[in-house]
């Protein structure tokens, strides 16, 4: 079944409009790592009882994630193929997708029917409001997006968009060097972090979420150190009275990060009393885990 049809079937989104309270489709996405072999984790969550959830459970519908890498106009489709967790109040499916590109993708998720189906509206099982009369039979074609989530983007000021991590073989174990290029072209990452192999490996597993183990705390601290170097460079540049320094010329990702720094910490790198180490540790505080040695043994 195909062709142009008006939207005559209910679509579940994050607000659950058209569905009763408590029914919704939510998605969260995180990117792990700062280097070329990054992983995207997408969590689909269907809350409340609904026909969408029933069809996912029965295999008549499946989660699907679309990625758009805008610079190269490259799209990828990743239908979910694993097991989902239906033990709690929500049905949850976690997808892990290896990212082929350095650019952070735009993530659009949906729930898609795998064949032509007919929905017989039934209250409250279908999860629909009375707008859809009980007993109505609604034909829904194969590939229909019966669940749809707004596109998720990774902010331009995310660390992954700011810092390009590369391995520098000449550096000894445990060493790294930050290079800041404030006037980097748009789309180019303004900071390059040259790392020894061991640091490079650790940063591949870095996530922006708060550290929960000693090893994650160590990775986070490496990034704090890098932020300190960036802030020190920008502070020096802003105060250099260089006639060529023009804030408008600064790479938009870096400028955006500076705005985020100011909003979250009250520290601006062009202030006279700006302190890079304080700003960096306010932005990404060191996490001291008192029992971290226990984590390390696990």
């Amino acid at each position, binding site marked *: 079944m195909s062709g142009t049809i008006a939207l005559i079937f209910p679509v579940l989104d994050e607000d659950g409009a058209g569905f009763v309270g408590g029914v919704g489709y939510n998605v969260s996405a995180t990117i792990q790592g700062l280097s070329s072999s990054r992983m995207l984790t997408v969590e689909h969550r269907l809350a409340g009882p609904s026909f969408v959830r029933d069809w996912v459970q029965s295999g008549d519908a499946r989660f699907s994630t679309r990625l758009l890498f805008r610079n190269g*106009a*490259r799209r990828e489709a990743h239908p979910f193929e694993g097991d989902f967790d239906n033990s709690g109040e929500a049905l949850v499916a976690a997808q892990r997708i290896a990212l082929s590109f350095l650019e952070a993708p735009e993530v659009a998720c949906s729930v898609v029917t795998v064949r032509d189906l007919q929905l017989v509206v039934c209250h409250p099982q279908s999860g629909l409001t009375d707008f859809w009369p009980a007993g109505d039979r609604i034909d829904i074609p194969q590939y229909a997006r019966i669940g749809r989530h707004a596109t998720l983007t990774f902010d331009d000021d995310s660390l992954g968009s700011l810092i390009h991590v590369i391995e520098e073989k000449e550096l000894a174990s445990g060493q790294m060097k930050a290079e800041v290029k404030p006037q980097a072209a748009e789309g*180019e990452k303004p900071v390059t972090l040259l790392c020894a192999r061991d640091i490079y490996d650790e940063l591949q597993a870095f996530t922006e979420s708060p550290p929960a183990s000693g090893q994650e705390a160590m990775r986070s601290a490496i990034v704090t150190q890098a932020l300190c170097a960036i802030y020190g460079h920008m502070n020096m540049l802003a105060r250099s009275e260089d006639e060529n320094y023009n804030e408008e010329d600064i790479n938009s990702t870096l400028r955006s990060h500076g705005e985020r720094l100011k909003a979250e910490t009250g520290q601006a790198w062009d202030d006279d009393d700006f302190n890079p180490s304080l700003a960096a540790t306010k932005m990404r505080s060191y996490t001291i885990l008192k029992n971290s040695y226990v984590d390390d043994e696990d």
Partner: protein
Amino acid sequence: MNDHLPTDNIDGDGALGNFDHQFTELEFVEPPLDPTQKYIWEAFGPAEAGGNEELYADCCFWGVVVREMVERGLVDASWLAAGASDTHDDAGRDNIENALSAEGEDAAKTMDDCVRRVLRSMCNPRPRGARIVFNDFPLGKSWWRWRWAERMAGLLNIEREDILEQALGSSNYAIIAAKMHSGRSYLSADNVFGGLILFLRGPQGMQLPGKRLGKIIDELAAQSAWQAIELRAPTENQDEFERLHRGLPDG
């Protein structure tokens, strides 16, 4: 040029490698499929998934390549001012002289047009943004045309050369590249792009005027909102392209 060209830390010598094809001006402005586009494709190599492809979508990379070509004498700097509509030798030099000597109301526009042509030929994103690689810049267009053909050849088990000649001719490529970078990028999902290639190789697609191709692509865009066309097999999408073609009014 050296002071103002964004380089993204790309080394020109390494980027250009051993590429030593001596262009003519017309060939640089509009590289023919064979042999020049083939030289370009082979020089920069088939992209590995990921990293390389991202590099070849990068304005900085191509900007560095052009600079290196000028430095090695493979192209003349004045050719950067020549446009695709120029069909005579020394067009770039003539355009620069015209811009410098223009007077009256059109002087500013003549100069602006000339500067824009130079920026486009250097793959500088200022005139049109990053899509310049795919839409305007001759070397980038050549490489991507071959890249897309190779990608689809692998997906559809069709010879790359057949796709280049039958489905991704320069006119079709121009329309598809423009659509992909103007809100119609859903087209680039393998199954959708594959369906389009199959359609364009078929009897209906081969006779298609360019304007109609653009309309068909637009029509499919609306479907993408409610239907997962990216999960539909290429042959199913081919059927859909054919149906849309039949449904559009003539003209």
